[in-house]
Every structure is written in structure tokens, then in C-alpha cells.
């Protein structure tokens, strides 16, 4: 039987993680800034970043937290926004070497982000624990450090700079959704449906009373279910995701 290639050196993972960590610096910088502008102390912003390591979920969670919305809303919002990690985690479970224990899987799971997932699934063959831990390290450091710098610097940055940086996270989201929406028609349709619903909930009188976290849940679940019903995904294209 053919033996699959195994990547299991910490240094290799560490090196692969450096560009991800650098990229995270700037996005988490925006998160730190936004957290402080919404009334959180610097340490609280860093605690959120270090324990969550996720962009969309943290930005959504921030408004729920500062609005003092019910904890259930927080849980449901995170569940829906971050449900994509379940798919990545599932896919990664096929990629990990079979010798990896459950305890090690508990550790690796903490670092599953869009970019870490993308890099690790791009490796040919299988990946081991040491490679994964190396890969996670710089992104986690970059994410936490960027949050700290953003939170600490927000008060000294002039208004026009803060205004310009406010769009950074959305620019990144657009960079994630546009290319697949362009190449895979159903993805474009699902995005268009989600955007339309979200705008409806923002501008329609009665509907705009629904709290922000739930709007994202409702729109995303409805649009994705619509897409799954009308355009079921084949086994192949799933693995390209």
C-alpha cells in the first residue's frame, strides 16, 4: 500500500503560519479599535480575541455584548456565524494522521480558522499534531497582538484614520465572497439572497426591530437552506471549498 506523505514538523507549520499571522495583525487591529470605541477596556478586547480567534463571530459578538442582549442570543449567533468551522473541522478530520489522539485533536481544534484550514488542507498528504501547532502559533499571536495594539492606539488615532479603518473588515469579507460568487453561480445566488434579506431586515419598518444577531442568523440560514435545496453540492466541489 502506498504511504501518504506526512507533514509533522513544528518549524514547517510555524513558517507557513507567518503570513497568516501578519494578515491577522491588521484585521484584529480594527477589532481592538472597535471594541474600545464601544466601551470595552483594552484587556477585555484582548481576552475576547485570544479566546475566540475568529473575525466575523467576534465582530457580531461585540454588539451583542455591549447591548447586553440575552446570553442565548450570543450562543445562537456564534453557532450560526461559526458553523462553517464545523465543516472545516469535519474536513480536517480526514486530513489528520490517524495516530493523532483525541487529546491532541482537542488542542488542534482551537486553531481552526478560515486561513489555517485553507493552508493545512492545501498540504499534500496528511498533517500531524506538531505541524498543526506550529501553523496555529503565529496566527494566534498576531490576532491577539493586533487586538492589543488596535485597542491601545484607538484613542490616539485621529478621527479620519479611524473612519477609514472601519471598512477594513468588510473589505476582507468582500475579498472572501466575491471570487467564489463569480465562479460558482449558486454561491452568487446564495450571497445575493442573504444580502437582500439583510437589507430588508434593516430598512423595513417592523422587521428592523429584530436584534442584529438574529438578523444574521435568519438571513444566513434561510439563504443557505434555499441554496442547499435548489443547488445541492456534489461531492467533488465540496472538497474544493
Amino acid at each position, binding site marked *: 500500500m502506498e504511504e501518504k506523505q506526512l507533514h509533522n514538523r513544528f518549524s514547517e507549520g510555524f513558517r507557513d503560519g507567518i503570513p497568516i499571522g501578519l494578515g491577522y495583525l491588521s484585521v484584529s487591529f480594527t477589532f481592538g479599535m472597535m471594541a474600545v470605541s464601544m466601551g470595552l477596556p483594552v484587556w477585555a478586547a484582548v481576552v475576547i480575541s485570544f479566546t475566540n480567534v475568529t473575525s466575523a463571530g467576534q465582530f457580531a459578538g461585540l454588539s451583542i455584548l455591549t447591548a447586553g442582549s440575552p446570553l442565548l442570543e450570543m450562543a445562537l449567533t456564534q*453557532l450560526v456565524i461559526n458553523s462553517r468551522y464545523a465543516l472545516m473541522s*469535519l474536513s480536517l478530520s480526514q486530513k489528520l494522521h490517524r495516530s493523532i489522539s483525541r487529546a491532541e485533536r482537542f488542542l488542534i481544534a482551537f486553531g481552526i480558522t478560515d486561513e489555517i484550514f485553507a493552508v493545512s488542507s492545501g498540504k499534500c498528504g496528511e498533517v500531524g499534531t506538531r505541524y498543526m501547532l506550529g501553523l496555529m502559533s503565529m496566527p494566534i499571536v498576531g490576532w491577539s497582538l493586533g487586538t492589543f495594539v488596535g485597542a491601545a492606539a484607538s484613542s490616539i488615532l485621529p478621527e479620519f484614520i479611524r473612519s477609514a479603518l472601519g471598512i477594513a473588515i468588510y473589505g476582507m469579507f468582500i*475579498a472572501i465572497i*466575491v471570487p467564489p460568487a463569480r465562479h460558482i453561480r449558486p454561491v452568487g445566488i446564495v450571497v445575493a439572497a442573504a444580502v437582500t434579506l*439583510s*437589507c430588508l431586515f434593516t430598512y423595513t419598518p417592523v422587521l428592523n426591530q429584530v436584534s442584529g444577531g438574529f438578523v444574521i442568523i435568519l438571513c444566513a440560514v434561510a439563504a443557505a437552506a434555499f441554496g442547499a435545496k435548489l443547488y445541492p453540492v456534489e461531492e467533488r466541489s465540496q472538497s474544493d471549498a
Partner: protein
Amino acid sequence: MPDNFIFYVAVMAGVTYLIRMLPLALVKKKLKSRFIRSFLFYIPYAVLGAMTFPAILYSTGRLYSAIAGLLAAGILAYREKSLLTVAGCSCAVVLVSEWVLRFAVK
């Protein structure tokens, strides 16, 4: 900041971690339901779409600069530039457009 900040963070981090951990630790076989697999495939795009619009229009100090930033991001993303390039250029366009308009208005 709410008094029970730590509970919010615990729920936030706990839910996020469980989502990442459970499939990796428990699932060894492929999911059978085609609907669920498709749903999970579309979810990230639907979430990001709903989070970006219309929120992006109010992400800067002014509506017009946000629209300029959105257009810049849209064009660069369409040309498949990297995340960092798209986000950075979008910020730069917001900065420049606010600066230009400040003088135009005066």
C-alpha cells in the same frame, strides 16, 4: 461593558470552540445527508453576505466614503486580489475620498 462580561466571553468562546472541536474529535466518517453538506457549504458565504450588507455602508464616518470604499473593494475582489490588498485599498480609498470631499465642500 456589562457586569457579567466574563459570562458573555465564556459563552462566546465556549460555543465557538465546541463547533471547532466536536466534528474533529468525534466524526471519522463522511456526512451522508446531501442537504446538510450543501447547507454547510453555503453557510459561510451567506453569513458574510448578510454581515457585510448593509453594514458596510455605515462602517465609516460618511456614507459617500463608504460607497467609494465598497466600490474599490468590489473591483479588487472581482480581480481576485488578496484579502490584505482588498481591505487595505478599500481603507485607502475611504481616506482619500473623505479628504478630497472635505476640500470640495469648503
